[in-house]
């Protein structure tokens, strides 16, 4: 069966981590291209992180 849209052939389960320690040191970019350590977003207070499926 061909893969359409890069879709998974088998149904996957979501796997949230126990804590955000693994996320904290990962780096994303802001819209100016600057590196932002993800954990910096919740160092001083809570953060709501939203991962988009697509733009729109």
């Amino acid at each position, binding site marked *: 069966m061909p893969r*359409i*849209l*890069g*879709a*998974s*052939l*088998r*149904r*996957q*389960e*979501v*796997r*949230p*981590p*126990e*804590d*955000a*320690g*693994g*996320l*904290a040191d*990962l780096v*994303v*970019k*802001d*819209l*100016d*291209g600057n590196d*932002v350590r*993800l*954990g910096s*977003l*919740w*160092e*001083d*207070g*809570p*953060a*709501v*992180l*939203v*991962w*988009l*499926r*697509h*733009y*729109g």
Partner: protein
Amino acid sequence: MQLHRDRSEFEASGARLAVIGQGTPAHAAQFRDSQKLEIPLYVDEGRDTYKEAGTKIATVGELLGPAMIAKGAKASRRDGVVQGRTVGHPAQLGGVMVVRPGNEITYVHLAGDASDNPPNDEVLRAARAASRG
């Protein structure tokens, strides 16, 4: 976009809103400008944070099933927008997490299919609770 519409409520919740997309800063900037968004956007071209967050890659049925199409049409009518060009992995699903200092995850909702987004009210309640400690 519901997040944009409710941004003042997120600001008032005391939690910092951060929206992460695939692609490059230029892709995200184009999206922000076209939608006139005033929410903090970040990009993760390698999808490392998606993987670490535990989000999943959808099956065809989870992307294009009747329920997904119906929900997409409803959202388009409600928000007056249609899905833009897909950037990055087309079957990558998203999710929402509330994280407190100390790396404590107090709320998580990872999409089970393309139409699976938590209501903003639910996320706002979680954000307010996290701010109260």
